[in-house]
């Protein structure tokens, strides 16, 4: 007589258990239509806020703003209504990719925060996974009728909208420019009010800077370790300068190995192949921090970065910006708009281009207190609170009324607000964006490490096809 062996029986048990549990993966409570009125009259409210900010570390000013301004104000506001509110701030100070992963895992399990900070480009993925829901569904009328929407432009609202529905309140926006070191420019015989009108003029200036000893002429973000910075402040502004955006909303197609993509990769080849930029810095794990440090030490001539660089990396205050602070920033550092490939070849026939994004506040659809969570978000986005944040650290707020009062004192941010935001482009909030962005980073990494632009473009087109399907890829 033969019995199944112990192993076989164990394996059978395991299989049976997993068959039972297999419904778990991806299963969502089908009918969990959020109830906006849940706990609306609660007398005791507990909320958790999270952001990639930490006191004494990354985005310290915003962390301090949440803990010292927003939370006390919210508690007082609720107390006036006879409600005892307890709000905890759950800060982090890590790379954005890591914060994003943690956030997704939290949302997936339904734990984590009620209100959280998120970058607008993550929205497509989060919404498609069902991790976040439109404000109209979670909050209802209170969100629809909020008076703050009038102060936030359509373009900025779109940062936190998906399929024409609002998912959160934008906190601010940004723009990308070329930063120049005026001291090095003077040494190389270049004008202080430099404004290139084509890629060639950028490269010419870099060639002039190359004659200086110990100077990296031009650094444009590339490579995988730089993450989204590669896509947002390197590849995409360049691509916008070739005439077509990465994603064609009307046709639903992404640019594959198009002439535009190949042109951009060829620009990278000229920068890093001719020794105008330092390819090592783009391959190093801590390359972006190195580029910050070298710019602050007057070792980089031209650097493509966002306004974050100006206000949080090279600000004159050593307390806020640490080792990369530049005491003489306002005298030494200049800026220029990013030119299209040739005058007039940019998207919409523009001469100059930029890419903007922006983070904001969203709420978890699984929050126990949707109304109170919304009130907290609305308070964070109120004129008073946004002004306090801009005072602590100047930035482009999402609110026009706040910008009107705070930006005039900062030359770069008023430049961005007046000259860059009108010509800027936004990244697609599509669920495939993250994957496409990874493919872009890999393509630039290939060029930096010596592959030809055509070869890199072909690999990129292949990854893109795998990510979005051949029917959504244009050109080739």
């Amino acid at each position, binding site marked *: 007589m033969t019995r199944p062996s112990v192993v076989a029986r*164990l394996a059978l048990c*395991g299989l049976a258990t997993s068959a039972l549990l297999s419904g778990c*993966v991806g299963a969502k409570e089908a009918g969990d239509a959020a109830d906006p009125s849940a706990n609306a009259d609660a007398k005791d409210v507990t909320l958790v806020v999270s952001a990639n900010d930490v006191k004494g570390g990354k985005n310290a000013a915003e962390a301090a703003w949440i803990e010292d301004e927003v939370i006390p104000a919210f508690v007082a506001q609720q107390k006036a209504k006879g409600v005892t509110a307890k709000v905890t701030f759950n800060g982090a100070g890590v790379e954005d990719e890591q914060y994003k992963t943690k956030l*997704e895992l939290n949302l997936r399990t339904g734990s984590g925060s009620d209100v959280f900070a998120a970058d607008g480009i993550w929205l497509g*993925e989060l919404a498609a996974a*069902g991790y976040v829901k439109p404000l109209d569904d979670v909050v209802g009328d209170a969100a629809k009728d909020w008076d703050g929407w009038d102060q936030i432009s359509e373009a900025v609202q779109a940062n936190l909208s998906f399929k024409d529905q609002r998912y959160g309140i934008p906190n601010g926006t940004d723009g990308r420019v070329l930063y120049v070191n005026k001291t090095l420019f003077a040494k190389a015989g270049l004008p202080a009010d430099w404004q290139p009108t084509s890629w060639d003029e950028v490269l010419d200036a870099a060639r002039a800077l190359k004659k200086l000893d110990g100077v990296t002429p031009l650094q444009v973000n590339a490579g995988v370790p730089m993450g989204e910075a590669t896509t947002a402040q390197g590849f995409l502004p360049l691509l916008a300068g070739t005439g077509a955006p990465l994603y064609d909303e009307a046709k639903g197609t992404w640019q594959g190995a198009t002439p535009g993509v190949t042109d951009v990769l060829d620009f990278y080849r000229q920068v890093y192949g001719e020794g105008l930029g330092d390819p090592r810095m783009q*391959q190093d794990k801590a390359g972006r921090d190195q580029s910050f440090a070298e710019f602050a030490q007057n070792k980089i001539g031209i650097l493509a970065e966002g306004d974050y660089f100006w206000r949080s990396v090279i600000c004159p205050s050593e307390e806020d910006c640490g080792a990369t602070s530049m005491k003489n920033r306002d005298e030494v550092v200049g800026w220029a708009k990013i030119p299209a490939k040739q005058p007039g070849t940019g998207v919409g026939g523009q001469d100059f281009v930029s890419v903007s994004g922006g983070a904001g506040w969203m709420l978890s659809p699984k929050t126990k207190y949707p109304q109170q969570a919304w009130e907290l978000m609305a308070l964070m986005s109120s004129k008073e609170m946004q002004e306090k944040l801009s005072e602590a650290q100047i930035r482009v707020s999402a609110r026009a009324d706040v910008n009107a009062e705070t930006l005039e004192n900062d030359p770069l941010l008023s430049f961005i607000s007046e000259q860059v935001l009108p010509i800027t482009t936004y990244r697609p909030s599509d669920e495939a964006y993250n994957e496409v962005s990874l493919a872009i980073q890999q393509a630039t990494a*290939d060029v930096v490490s010596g592959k030809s632009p055509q070869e890199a473009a072909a690999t990129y087109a292949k990854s893109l096809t795998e990510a979005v399907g051949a029917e959504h890829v244009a050109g080739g």
Partner: protein
Amino acid sequence: MPSTSPAAERDVAGLGRARALGFVAPALVVIGVFLVFPAVWTLYLGLLDYSLTGAGAQAPTFVGLGNYTEALGDPAFTRSLGLTLVYVGGSAVLGQNVLGFALAWRLRGAGKVVRSGLTVLVLLAWILPGSVVAFLWQALLDRRGGTLNALLGTTDQAWVLDHPMWVIVVFNIWRGTAFSMLLYTAALSSVPRSHLEVARMSGASGWQQLRDVVLPTVRRHVLTNTLLITLWTFNDFSPYLLTGGGPNGASEILPVYVYREAIIGGHLGYGSAISLLLLLANLVIAVFYLRVLRGRTEAT
């Protein structure tokens, strides 16, 4: 056939089937929950196009062996597998093994001070937390102000970028040699002194003593040690802290590849499939060593 029933004969402890089962049940439950179930679960996830975000998170579809065929056809995977073999072979099978044995052998005759001093140093590399060690190595290898560049007088030498595989292999030898050294120290003390003396009296050189007396005695220790460090190194993630898998994937060993695909890229299904391949590779290695071990045991 013996006269007693086979069941009674097998039941040496006289517990009876039910009570015996009661005794092993807790262990079986723990094994089931923490070993069998996760393995089967990984197998199951590997059959889905399950992802961390997007539509693949809400309603993953069944793709059968799609993930596996994709992995085997992906040049990044095969390159990663190759790098893993180099890493394991270079740092564990050769590096840690040989260096650990050499240290244990040399230290036998050394004075007490030298021996304990060296042992502490080697052990220190092993017991320090990974993140601390990674930070120390970053400071050592840094391109601008690194200690190594300062010592060698080289400027602007980016060790991590120019020689990523060398860096992680040397790093892992440095980090893991302590275990082999400890194991071999214990093994060498089991070699009977009299055997060595007889060999010496018969005029055997140091090398001949090692080859003909010591190695046959510690052969099983060598195999056990190699098995353990091979498995550990195969699953080692700490190189990520040094090179991040870069530059451009040049040091992307399999655990890093899984991390990049599953966590950064969000392809949980694909990551599970690769993890299972990793598990299979581990099993093959383990079975291979155990076979050799058993063969050797029977031969002696």
